[in-house]
Each structure stands twice: as structure tokens, then as C-alpha cells.
């Protein structure tokens, strides 16, 4: 069975490998020290099991999960993390609290191995995704044919609804992501991002001009020169937020 380790601390990786050395059925096919290269490797090499830390450089463990095409068995390894604790409560997946014993580790791996045969490469575990999708966003991670892109909140001009997808317009260009407007709206900082229209969420810091358009509607000019529609209720929200 193929296994990948995503863990940024060398001693922690050493310990995992030491525990795994006793299991002949497991082959470690890769070790990665950040979430970015971990996500790429998992999608490329399709391991059966992943040992995943949550606090990682570049992309954290939850962001990594959101980028997976297919889901291997995920065993979280974490020291202390409020979201992990939430995951534990929901019993979403197996998790190990550092430091953990060899017995506890073996038990988790055993459980994962048993599940591999049953639901191999399924969609990412629904409840794990649910937790990831509740977390407030401090940056947006998107994936396209060129790779993975990390967009800072302040770089976003506005977001547009496109059926089950959203289009993110930012300083680096535009990116499509499979996510609902409702979900992303809930996770954005409401002081900065306002749902100005059924189809648009605007970064209020990037609005240049607001002008009446048709009856009960407005047009906002964004600092990148583009314009978006603002509905009557969106206008009301903007007035509250920007205090004019």
C-alpha cells in the first residue's frame, strides 16, 4: 500500500517513518514538507494513505484537501488545532494528537488500510470537506491547468457567480473555482467583502465609483477599470458598510 507523508518538521517525519518501518505492507512513496508540493504529489502519485499535518507552510492541511482530485485515506497528525478538534468532534476522519504512541499510530494506520479496500479513491470525504468549507478565509487557493495559485484577500477585486462556480477577478488575472457564492460569502470578512448583487461580491476597498444605472440599480466601477452591477439591496449593504 502506498503512503505519502506531508509534515514540515524533520523530527516529526523521522518518528512517522520509524513507526512505519515495522509495517511491511506499507511503502512510503514520498515525503513533503509543505502543503503545496504535498497536494501536487498526492494528485500525481495517488497514494492509498496520507499522513497529513494541519499547520504547514504555503498551504495548510485543510487547503490541501480542497485541492485533491480523489481522496486517499487521510490521517491527520496535529499538535493542537481548534479546527482539528472540530474534526474530532464530527468524527470526520482519523486523527492523531502529537505526541502519539506507536500503538495509537498503528491503530490509525490499520483502520485506514481496512478502508482502502472498501472506498478506494472516492471523492474527498464529505464531512472533512464540510469542515474545510466552514473555515474563515484569509486567502483563496485555486487550481488550474498551470498549477496552484494562492490569492491574497487584498488582491481580489470582485467575485462573480457562474452557476456552481465562482470567477475570482484579482490583480493576477481571473480564476475559476468550484464553489458556491453563498459558501464563499459566508467565509469572507464581511467588513471587506459585500454581496452587492445576486451575481457579485465586491471588495469594498477596490470600489472606485458608484453611479445610478436603471431604476433601483447601480453600477460600481472597480479600480481595475471594470464595472459590475449593484442591486438595490446591495446598495443598501454598501451604504451601511461604507457609511455614506
Amino acid at each position, binding site marked *: 500500500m502506498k503512503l505519502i507523508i506531508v509534515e514540515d518538521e524533520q523530527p*516529526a517525519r523521522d518518528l512517522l517513518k520509524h513507526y512505519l518501518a515495522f509495517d511491511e505492507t506499507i511503502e512510503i512513496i514520498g515525503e513533503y514538507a509543505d502543503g503545496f508540493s504535498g497536494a501536487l504529489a498526492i494528485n500525481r502519485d495517488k497514494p492509498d494513505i496520507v499522513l497529513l499535518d494541519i499547520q504547514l507552510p504555503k498551504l495548510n492541511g485543510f487547503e490541501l484537501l480542497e485541492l485533491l482530485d480523489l481522496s486517499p485515506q487521510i490521517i491527520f497528525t496535529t499538535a493542537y488545532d481548534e479546527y482539528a478538534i472540530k474534526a474530532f468532534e464530527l468524527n470526520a476522519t482519523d486523527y492523531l494528537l502529537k505526541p502519539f504512541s506507536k500503538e495509537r499510530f498503528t491503530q490509525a494506520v490499520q483502520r485506514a488500510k481496512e478502508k482502502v479496500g472498501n472506498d478506494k479513491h472516492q471523492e474527498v470525504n464529505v464531512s472533512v470537506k464540510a469542515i474545510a468549507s466552514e473555515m474563515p478565509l484569509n*486567502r483563496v487557493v485555486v487550481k488550474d491547468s498551470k498549477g496552484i495559485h494562492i490569492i491574497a484577500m487584498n488582491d481580489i477585486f470582485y467575485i462573480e457567480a457562474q452557476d456552481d462556480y465562482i470567477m475570482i477577478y484579482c490583480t493576477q488575472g481571473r480564476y475559476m473555482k468550484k464553489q458556491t457564492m453563498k459558501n464563499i460569502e459566508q467565509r469572507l470578512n464581511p467588513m471587506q467583502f459585500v454581496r452587492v448583487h445576486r451575481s457579485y461580491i465586491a471588495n469594498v476597498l477596490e470600489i472606485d465609483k458608484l453611479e445610478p444605472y436603471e431604476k433601483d440599480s447601480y453600477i460600481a466601477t472597480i479600480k481595475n477599470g471594470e464595472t459590475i452591477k449593484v442591486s438595490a439591496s446591495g446598495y443598501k449593504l454598501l451604504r451601511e458598510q461604507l457609511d455614506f
Partner: protein
Amino acid sequence: MLREAELKTLVKEAELTWLKLQINPHFLFNSLNSISSLTITAPDKAQEMINRLSELLRYSLKQSPNSMVSLSDEVENCKKYLAIEQVRFGDRLKYNFDYSNEALQILVPSMVLQPLFENAVKHSVAQTDSTSIITAQFTQTSVGVCVSIINSLPETPASSIGTGVGLENIKRRLQLMYGTATLLNVNKSIDKFTVTIEFPDKILS
């Protein structure tokens, strides 16, 4: 009688809150995990790390919200903290201290520096796999000592933005002890984060 008991409970609660603030569970459990690993790969280093961690915990348990210590004690404690973090992060973490021994003689509120280094680690080395540098400078001024702690910032935006609670706590304590609200300042540039504290020679009596 009842009042006295109540008062005692309040004092106890305040002390417990204080202790809880000093010990960062994420740091503690990750360090224990490193030790667990070192007991197998390098037992000598494991022992060294246990000693360091014990000293660090003992130091923080010994302090109370009002205690004053020499800046040199604080610096020693922070060096222990960073040495432990370096076991976890290896070459990814580099740090250096720049001071004269005279500058470290001044008395300062205890446990004000370590949280600043914890912040520096959290926002630099924990966010990137390339090398992060933390620099601490201690300069004597006409009114006291100025401490600057500077950490490099990674290129990618951080997954978590600090709530600033840690800095606010330190600010409040400094204000209570010195009667000035402007002793702690932060400055953020594109690749660097700097916290500066001006410790005056005299505290409020």
C-alpha cells in the same frame, strides 16, 4: 470571612489565567513530539531538549504579572525558546542577537519578550519552507533600552492572520507598569515585520 474567600478565589483565577497565557499549547505539544522522535534517533539531543524545555517552563511558572527581571534573564529565556524551535525547524530557522552587556542590565516586566519571538516564528518559519531570519537588537538610549525584534515574511500570504491579542496583552501590561501607551510599536513592510519596545529606566511606583 466570605469576602476574603472570594478574594482568594479571584486571585487564584487571575494567576491561572496568567499561567495559561504563558504556555502556548501548540509549541508545547510539538516540542514533546520532537522529543518523542529524538528519543529514537538521538537520545542525547532528546535529553538536552527536555532540560531546555523544563528550564523554559520553570522560568515562566516563576513569574507573575507584576514581576520584574533583568533584560539579560529575558534574553537567556528567549534563546532557550529559539533553540527548541530550531530543533523542530532545523535550517529553516536562523536567528541572531545583537546587544551589549550593559544594555541587558535594565529591569523589565517578565515574559514580555518570549511572546514576541513566538509571533515571529509563527509568521515566518511556520509559513515557509525557505529560510527565515529573526533578528533581535538591543540599543541603549538616553531614557532606557530599545528592543527591536525583526522577522522576515514569506512571499505567499499567510493562512492565518494573527489576531493581535498577544501584542495587545503586552501593550496593556506595559501601560499598567509604565503609565505610557506608546512603548510598543509595530511596523510591517512587504518582506519584514518589526516590533519595537522602548523600555524606560523607571517604572511607576
